């Protein structure tokens, strides 16, 4: 059973056509049990709105979603008992201690005090549990939020930018906690800007741009492992021109290391034969695995361009 499935899920803010904003546009994806699923997108792309719909704080305009197979109001209410989630910044009562904040969350989730201590221990906040939340550093707030999500021992954990604003040490701590949770078999749905972190942590990703999912799947599939090649030749311009004309290549771009071409077939022997026929002699040919960041920039470039236009 899929912990999360969305079907043409849509959210439009505002009712007047001229002023309304289409925040999420018919998105469809699924998260399977045990996956660590990264949800990526530029600011304002619809990540938090999507998560808000999943956790019940935002009403979808149209479309639907399932949590653990449930879709009706009662079914979703029951399914949400199997979910632990935080949205954007950690949301707690600033005048209460960390422990008292967890007591509120534990009462809502119907769990007892021993579990509060366990979760505080797991995130390393036992020593500061009696201190007021507003005295916590950002890293401690994020860790408290993680503790709160884990109170009911959820099967699905949804984290919205859990490493936001953290220093490298804080990021490492959050990554470690996520790793422990993944090892325990939890399904984790994680939105983040930190692409290197996502690539390191997640098994699957979806990239959302202007409210629409542009690509999703296993990280290896999304980055196109196996279908891209890195080529070098003494005459880089001739190489680039030849590859752009090569019928089997779907994209060609120049990098500092050489030319990266994505091939439909992945047949390297044909490439060498073709280039030799074009009078281009290769000095280097190897499979190329782009980073998630490169893929992200590539598929969200339109959004970046439009933001630049607005800024200028």
């Amino acid at each position, binding site marked *: 059973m899929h912990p999360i499935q969305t079907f043409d899920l849509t959210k439009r803010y505002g009712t007047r056509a001229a002023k309304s904003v289409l925040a999420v546009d018919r998105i469809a994806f699924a998260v399977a049990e045990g996956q660590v699923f990264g949800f990526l997108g530029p600011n304002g792309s619809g990540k938090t709105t999507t998560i808000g719909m999943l*956790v019940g*704080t935002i009403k979808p305009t149209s479309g639907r979603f399932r949590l653990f197979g449930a879709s009706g109001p009662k079914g979703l*209410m029951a399914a949400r008992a199997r979910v632990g989630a935080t949205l954007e910044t950690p*949301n707690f009562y600033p005048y209460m201690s960390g422990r008292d904040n967890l*007591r509120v969350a534990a009462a809502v989730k119907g769990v007892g005090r021993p579990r509060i201590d366990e979760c505080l221990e797991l995130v390393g906040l036992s020593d500061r549990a009696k201190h007021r939340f507003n005295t916590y550093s950002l890293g401690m707030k994020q860790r408290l939020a993680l503790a709160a999500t884990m109170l009911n021992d959820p099967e699905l954990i949804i984290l919205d930018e859990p490493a936001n604003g953290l220093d490298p040490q804080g990021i490492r701590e959050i990554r470690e906690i996520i790793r422990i949770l993944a090892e325990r078999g939890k399904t984790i749905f994680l939105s983040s800007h930190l692409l290197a972190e996502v690539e390191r942590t997640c098994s699957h990703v979806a990239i959302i741009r202007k409210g629409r999912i542009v690509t999703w799947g296993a990280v290896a599939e999304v980055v196109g492992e196996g279908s891209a090649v890195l080529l070098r030749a003494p005459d880089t311009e001739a190489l680039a021109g030849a590859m752009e004309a090569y019928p089997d290549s779907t994209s060609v771009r120049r990098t500092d290391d050489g030319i990266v071409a994505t091939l439909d077939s992945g047949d390297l022997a044909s490439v060498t034969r073709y280039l030799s026929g074009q009078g281009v002699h290769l000095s280097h040919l190897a499979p190329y695995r782009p980073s998630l960041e490169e893929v992200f920039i590539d598929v969200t470039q339109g959004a970046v361009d439009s933001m630049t236009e607005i800024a200028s």
Partner: protein
Amino acid sequence: MKILSVLLRIEWLKAVKRRSFWVAVAAFAVFTALPAVERVRNAHSDPNAVFALPESWPDILGTAAGIGPLFVGVLMILLVAPEFSWRTARQNVIDGLSKERFYAGKVMLLAGLVLFFMATTVLIGVGGALLSPGAGGPGFVRSSDFGYMSGLALAMLVFGSAGLFLSALVRSSGSALGILFLYLFVEEGVARLMSGAGREALRSAAEFLPFNVVEDLGDDLAHYPEVLAEVNADRAERSLALLEFPDVEVLAVAALAYSAFLLGISLLNMRKRDL
């Protein structure tokens, strides 16, 4: 029933950990207790100045009525509105409360505050009577005292409902407080204009404006006809206009209607808007 006890526990925890809750309760207790303390002192020095129950209930309840409803309204805003700016309302829903249950918790908070403030008032009255020499008439509470207590509780309920309504609507404690005080100011002016109008219907309608209903429910003269008769006899001697109050039952129905209206709109608003 289990969910009600959970909601009660959560709201209690949120309130008692909040400094402004205790500041408001302490300020209310001091304000209500000071006249009682003065009367107890007088009772010790002057044998004719008796402070005893049930005779002293009108004084005790009258003092509480001066600020109690406003305190409940303000405290509701201070306790509820920040839930939206801190986004803890959203987190409560994410953690598993439905919006309706979150709202039910706030209605329980309102009921709890009214009971808490009423209990404080009653304790001050009982405490003062116990510390005073002399005894009162038969019984601890007369039916008219009970009516006055109920009226005061309803007045607190109306203000508390207004506090909850504004908190859910504007979601900011500063703005909600500003609107509440602005409304009180505006209503006073409107009521004066309506009362001064020549038409009887307008004058009657002015008596049922929300703040007027609350004021009348908190006025001892509306609950003790014999005291009202004495006051009016005195005013008649001095050629002043006689005081009139609508029936307490009618005021109570009006107060309940205002409260139900405000709470109903708040619930609809809560259901409709995203968190």
